[in-house]
């Protein structure tokens, strides 16, 4: 009995002294299981050749990364990614800022208009994409009906290799500009008002105030919004996959879509993992650059 009590108190002393270790331990273990392990496994797979279901992963060193450089679809994927993300992020940022500036002014019905305006952002991505897919159909879609009914020539939209990326950009802009608007609007509302009044008295017109005062002051918020949006945009999947699956051919196949196809349609886990790592690196580099830009921006 005494021995047992002594042992128990020894254990409790041991635990007490190491609370800092024991209390977070379960959380750390869970994080390890759901985050660290999968990433580590993914990294391991990049050095293997493995078709899911056929034997065990076979170590092949850097061969996947070597193959990647010779793979035309990788370069196509990077090109589509840069085209799609560059155009959509730039437009979303520009439009989001413009609309936020507009909403930042008081006018009648402002709140109602804002509520309606954020609907695309609030809607489920896949559901929205499915509706767009139908609307974009060149034969039975409503968009061509509208175009032709006002006398404009119909478009092939996503059915043409040339028009597909701009069309996807359009859908992405429609869906996500409201999010940028909301973030920028919150930023605008938190800005001090008197520098704007000072600038008016200093003699700046509306455009000069925007350029010299609003834009620099809102820059950190813009970059934050861009970072937030780019995380999703650079690996945009739901929308592109639902509307085009990367088609026609591979005209809208971003690198991320290609890596999905390799991993989950072709079941080539090794090569697919290597591609995912490349996508991850691109997202990482972009965000490091953005973060630096944001840190250099003035704190208000």
């Amino acid at each position, binding site marked *: 009995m005494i021995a047992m009590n002594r042992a128990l108190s020894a254990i409790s002393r041991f635990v007490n002294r190491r609370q800092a270790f024991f209390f977070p331990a379960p959380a750390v273990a869970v994080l390890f299981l759901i985050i660290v392990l999968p990433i580590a496994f993914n990294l391991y797979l990049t050095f293997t050749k493995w078709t899911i279901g056929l034997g065990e992963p076979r170590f092949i060193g850097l061969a996947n990364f070597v193959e990647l450089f010779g793979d035309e679809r990788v370069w196509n994927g990077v090109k589509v990614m840069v085209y799609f993300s560059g155009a959509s992020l730039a437009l979303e940022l520009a439009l989001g800022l413009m609309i936020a500036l507009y909403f930042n002014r008081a006018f009648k019905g402002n709140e109602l208009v804002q509520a309606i305006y954020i609907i695309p952002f609030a809607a489920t991505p896949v559901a929205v994409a499915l509706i767009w897919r139908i609307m974009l159909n060149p*034969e039975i879609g409503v968009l061509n009906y509208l175009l032709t009914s006002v006398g404009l020539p119909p478009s092939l939209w996503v059915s043409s290799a040339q028009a597909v990326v701009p069309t996807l950009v359009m859908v992405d802009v429609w869906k996500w500009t409201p999010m940028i608007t909301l973030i920028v609007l919150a930023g605008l509302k938190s800005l001090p008002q008197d520098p704007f009044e000072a600038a008016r008295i200093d003699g700046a017109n509306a455009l000069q105030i925007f350029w010299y005062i609003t834009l620099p002051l809102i820059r950190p918020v813009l970059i934050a919004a861009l970072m937030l949006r780019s995380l999703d945009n650079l690996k945009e999947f739901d929308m592109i996959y639902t509307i085009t699956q990367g*088609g026609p051919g591979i005209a809208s196949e971003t690198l991320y879509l290609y890596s999905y196809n390799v991993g989950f349609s*072709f079941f080539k886990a090794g090569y697919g993992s290597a591609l995912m790592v490349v996508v991850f690196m691109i997202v990482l580099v972009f965000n490091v650059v953005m973060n630096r830009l944001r840190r250099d921006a003035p704190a208000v």
Partner: protein
Amino acid sequence: MRSVRVVVALTVLLCVGLMSATAFAAVDWKQSQGTEIRFLMNKHPFTTYIEPKVAEFEKLTGIKVVIEAFPEDQYRNKRTIELNAGGKVDGYMIMPGQDDLHYWKAGWLQPLDGYIADPKLTDPSWDPKDFFASFAKASSVEGKQIGIVINAETSLLAYRKDLFAKFKQKVPTTMKELEQVAKFFHGKEVDGKKMVGITLRGKGAAATSQWVDFLYTFGGSWTNSKGQSNFASAEDIAAFKFYGDLLRKYGPQGGTMLHWAESTSSFMEGKAAMIYDANVFKALYENPKESKVSGKIGYAVIPAGPKGKRLPHVSNWSLSISKTSPPERQKAAWLFVQWATNKENCLGALLAGVPSGRASSWKSKEYKAGDKQPDWTAATMKSFDIGQGQWNPPVINVPEIRDITGQVIVAAIEGKDVTEAAKKAAELMDKKMER
């Protein structure tokens, strides 16, 4: 007559219970009593048909059957992942044309020949010769039967009977005529709508399933005698080019984004004079709620190629047994597969709208009595007879090679240099093929 006897036997069994089934049939249905087996299924009409009847089988055999069904896309992933992880899976549905090599190489498919040959395990009334030879072949790998067909499909040319009659056009019997008829209808105004000549799938990999019929019919093939890609051959290129030209010149706009849903809706909207797609879409075409052209459609097998050859593909879902399942449970699983594919169930499924792989089902009075499209039935049966079970590239990595093929189809539809695209694809295919 045998099936009648089985029914009698079952009835007696159910009523009396104590009596042994061996008194009436060669197979002891109770031999695996108490075993529990688990089947993974696709949420397919066949599954819908068979699930409520499983209780009958359980009463007959004392085997407990657990069926887990998932929507198709999810199902394929789930099945692969579970088998890969060595989960308790005794049997599953599979499309052999899609996955047989992969699954065979992975060691997940149990050859059934031994079970079929064993009179203690297989009732003579099951009658393997009743299955169309094309489907028996389609469900086999390296000469081994690895599945029993439960859903039999092929592709057919469907055409607007009313318009063909009105404009005095003949049903095309050759590829040349097909092109001419498509050209004739393309741009014709009918009921104020501009028609297209024909609609086909054009969306990359998805298009290969119907394109392959053109490939075979033009005398082409996936691989040559050396096992290398045959895409750069004159026949293959002709098939790519014909298919692409047909869709670009006489098909709907945006051909490269047409999956079966877009293509069939074009036809059902009355915008296309012809469509070449899966025969089972008849159910869509002829449904007056979905289709504006129901009752106005004729059906034909694929037109003949330059050398008079017609070679459509047949495809099927099969029930297979997992090789990883222990022998006792495999035996029980076979009893289940056998029961689910007996003449009674195959006919029952056909009457419920699931095309059967048994000739007897199609020839039965029950089916003929309710058949509203006998020319569809005739064309389907013909296609089953002449059909080829291999409709995918003969490789393990089917989706990847289909994807490469799809790129050439897209290039052909876009009117690009098909020869160059085909050569490039052939090189890539040689590099990527896994066997």
